[in-house]
């Protein structure tokens, strides 16, 4: 990748929406999903359908999305354990004696977690990191934090490449695999990596100072989003809010 995060570099209407709109849209959407009662199944079907539509419009290849879904594996394991450990009334499913609230809870975690991850994949796959930073800046994230974030994103590949070279050097000296005796070699490399990163940070700062840096980074973005862009970007989120409200009303 280098500086591109998980961006899938194609051109689509979703790619063209300004990052700040997508950030707000993602947040509103996920909040709507989280506040939907778990037992209202049709609401989650609608959310999923809208997300799939957005993924199609964004021209994201399905294998990429499904591969990136693997990130939630640990919590799938946790969710699948829930029906066995939760208390409350039991039901029999396929010959298993399960806790009813556990089954619903597992569904709750799986559905909301998966929807959240797909929505986040949609953001990260259609937005370049620097646009994301500009979006965060437009959303009034503190300037210092944006500066730290931008340096992190900018030097992530440098630091990882450092780490990779150290690993090649270490393994070519025979320190491979998981033997406990190799901890010192691995940790020594990581310690050296910290010293290198720290010193690089000092050098970068001095270079910035000598080029006139006074403690304020130049703004990343200049133009705001138009009203129609906001409307376009927030379509799914507003629909999700409407569904969440409807689900709440039904659940009462």
């Amino acid at each position: 990748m280098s500086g591109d995060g998980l961006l899938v570099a194609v051109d689509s209407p979703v790619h063209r929406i300004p990052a700040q709109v997508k950030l707000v849209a993602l947040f509103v959407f996920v909040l709507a999903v989280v506040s939907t009662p778990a037992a209202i199944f049709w609401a989650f079907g609608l959310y999923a359908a809208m997300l799939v539509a957005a993924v199609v419009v964004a021209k994201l290849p399905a294998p990429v999305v499904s591969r990136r879904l693997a990130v939630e594996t640990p919590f799938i394991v946790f969710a699948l354990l829930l029906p066995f450990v939760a208390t409350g009334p039991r039901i029999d499913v396929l010959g298993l004696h399960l806790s009813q609230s556990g089954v619903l809870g597992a569904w709750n975690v799986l559905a909301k977690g998966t929807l959240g991850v797909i929505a986040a994949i949609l953001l990260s796959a259609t937005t370049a990191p620097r646009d994301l930073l500009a979006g965060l800046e437009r959303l009034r994230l503190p300037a210092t934090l944006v500066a730290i974030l931008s340096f992190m994103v900018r030097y992530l590949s440098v630091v990882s490449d450092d780490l990779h070279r150290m690993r090649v050097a270490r393994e070519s000296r025979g320190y491979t695999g998981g033997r406990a005796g190799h901890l010192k070699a691995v940790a020594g490399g990581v310690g050296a990596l910290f010293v290198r990163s720290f010193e690089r940070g000092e050098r970068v700062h001095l270079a910035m100072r000598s080029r006139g840096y006074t403690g304020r980074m130049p703004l990343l973005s200049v133009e705001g989003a138009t009203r129609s862009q906001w409307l376009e970007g927030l379509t799914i989120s507003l629909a999700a809010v409407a569904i969440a409200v409807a689900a709440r009303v039904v659940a009462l």
Partner: protein
Amino acid sequence: MRIGRNWIKNVGVHVPDGFFDAPTSVATGLIAAGAVGFSLQRANRELRETGPALAGLTAAFVFAVQMVNFPVGAGTSGHLLGGALAAALVGPWTAVLVMSTVLLVQGLLFADGGLTALGTNITLMGLITVLVGYFLTKALLKVMPRRAGSVVPAATVGALVSVPVAALAFTGLYAIGGAVDIPLGKLATAMVGWHILVGIGEAVITAAVLSAVVATRPDLVYAARHLRQDLVLVDADGNTSTVSPDRPIAARPAGRSLGVGIAVTLVVAGGLSLFASAHPDGLEFVGAKLGFDSAAKNSAAAGSPLADYGVHGIGNAEVSGALAGIIGVLVTIVVGLAIAKLASLRANKAS
């Protein structure tokens, strides 16, 4: 580059969306935002001196190192969470910013950890591990020999304790805003038991990495900066004189930062318990609803109120139990810090 291939191998213990109910997510979001704002203010002087590049590079370092497989013995390998290590290396406030940055990038750029759970993730992994790790390290340093090398065992204990405390905080959050009525005693035991193991791995890795840094550049280790030895100069005639090292820019009276740390932990703990009493039935909602449903199905008239009562009773007892646990841990830390403080006062008086 490698991140594209390896990012799935990342520690992956981030809380996803929907794991906690919306009010809990909002509450932890507020705690996280407050903590980040406070840290920005506290780290302001350092950041003005060293620039945002250094914090950004430290964040990139933490992100990269979280993907390293460390062999931790018994044929297993462990991953580093890095909260306690970052705190020892760059100080608590910068470390909170660094860990928050890492979690933000993981959530937004790598879709790891839900966006509504970002506050929870920052509170657990960016705030609690860093502060517990750092203040425990500092407290232990006060009672240990005044050498830069002392920071290694001190931070090891800090790392060891910080992970189970975060797991306990997770259990406490689950008691307040979890969606399913798991018996919380069991959950707490399982979480803390498992995370003591994780904490041992964290401690081993933290010790190994920190001792590597102390061996080469002890002056870079924030927690040990005040322990640097005076420079001994010997002139041509054999006269010796000592020069004390420059005061690092971030050196502030320890008492104040300790006080602030305790205040922050108490505010966090207090905020959580307040939230618990303001919103007592987050846990009960699904359970009560289900108790009602199952009673209708089983046509056992006594089932519904009993089930409801059971959930209710267990829920409350366990909520208070989990909170008592967290508060107990915090009180232990505070008492420990107070003892260390007293000891250092006496040591100062004696010298």
